């Protein structure tokens, strides 16, 4: 089992290969988003074909992270790439994602494998 993500960081890049990268998010993703976060994730998207954002252990995500991932998804798709959201809790999908009208702009999957196969 992968190490727990410390409170101090919102996510950890767990795996990076030519074809894909896996980013695992922490339990509470409420961290102020910084330019360093944005740059790291954008570059990850540019270096690979698919970025899998795994929210399997996440209880909460703030709206600013979801909005950023929606923007990143759009940019990726313009370049023929993909940013996917995996195992995001249904409550967050039904509540926060819908409140922000982001459902159509994010790509949801139930597992990492499914996201990579798609």
């Amino acid at each position, binding site marked *: 089992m992968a190490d727990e993500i410390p409170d101090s960081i919102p996510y950890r890049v767990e795996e990076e290969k030519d074809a894909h990268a896996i980013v695992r998010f922490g339990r509470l993703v409420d961290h102020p988003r910084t330019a360093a976060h944005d740059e790291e994730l954008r570059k990850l998207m540019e270096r690979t074909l698919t970025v899998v954002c795994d929210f399997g252990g996440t209880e909460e*995500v703030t709206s600013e992270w979801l909005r950023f991932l929606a923007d990143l998804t759009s940019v990726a798709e313009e370049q023929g790439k993909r940013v996917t959201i995996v195992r995001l809790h249904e409550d967050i999908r039904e509540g926060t994602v819908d409140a922000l009208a982001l459902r159509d702009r994010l790509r949801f999957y139930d597992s990492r494998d499914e996201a990579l196969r798609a």
Partner: protein
Amino acid sequence: MPLGDAIRRARLRRGWTQAQLAAEIGRSQPYVSQIERGRGGSPRDIERIRELLDLEPEPAAPERQLVAELEWDGPPQSVRSGWVMKTWQRPRPSGDFVLFRSHDSGDLTVVAVDVVGHGPRAAPIAIYLQGWVRGTCPASKALRADDLAERLHQELGDTGLAANYYVGVFRLIDAKRHLVSYEGTGQGYPPPLLIIAGSTAPSAPAPGSPASPPVRHDSLVPPWRLVIASDGLLRRLGAGHESEGKRSLLRWQTGTRREAFPARFLETEQRVTDDESFALLSWQRWDGTTRFDIENATERHRAYDLVKEAAAELDAAVAERIGHVLVEAFSNCARHAYPEGYGSVIVRWRREGDRFRVEVEDSGRGGAVEEGSGFATMRRWASVDYWKSGVNGLTVSLSTNVEGEDG
């Protein structure tokens, strides 16, 4: 010399960096930087820094010390000034009035009088007394409650009429209206505080009879509520029947049907407008409170867990909704109140019947507006019952209930 400058000089004399001082008090370097720039720091931390740097103790400041004690023992008492009406408008001649006098010091004097007798006879006296109170109670200075009551008592004696009356002085500090002390006195309105203007309370002495001494009460033991109710409010509370509204208030005040009434009462609070003639000051004890530094994710997550755990005792679904709300509220604090990346946040919570209420207060930049996706998300999960933005920070109060009908 400002305290922040004194701390910086003392620190440099010792050859310490901000980071070293921060380590000594178990805080972050930006937090120390904030203190040195005179922009915050908890009283406990500042006291600790004084000890470490051999600075002189802070000169006696009774009000500040009282606040520090309140913070030590629990949450400061907040008087919600937004609920206080400045005027008491009556549609017809009446023998009752309530005056609120805001003083330059930030204190608040409340004077309520109900002259015994029917409106046409009592109204001229009430009008005269209003002028008298305004003249006697200047904005520049708050009188002692018993002093003002004594003068009012004498003035009433000169009119030859009797009255029920109440005088309360709320000593407040800072923009958040923290209550430091309270003194109140009255006749015909016994504690616990309940005032129903427009009533003819039986305890008022008959005109011309010897007046009974005012009843003095100089402390507020939470939870307390000061209710000043107009006929209109009573009718609304009683579904059109004033007497039923009064009975409802009394039942609530005396503890019977305590569970049933407050929810309805709270609904009433939400409908206060400038032309409604009632006022309410309220403070209830919180079930819990915690404070954390926004830059410290571990503290922040601990606060989240504490509140969610408390909400789970009411209902698991409520806890879920409160969790969603909290992360957005904390995120808003980080983005808007403390864009520099540091500052403290206070969270309070309590159960209110089948509702769970949480308040998130920051001390950062005020002037926030109620818009943006953060608020939209919070509204998705709970009712934003009030938000108060001032020069110093923002307080948001949210609640949700077992049925989840707020979403």
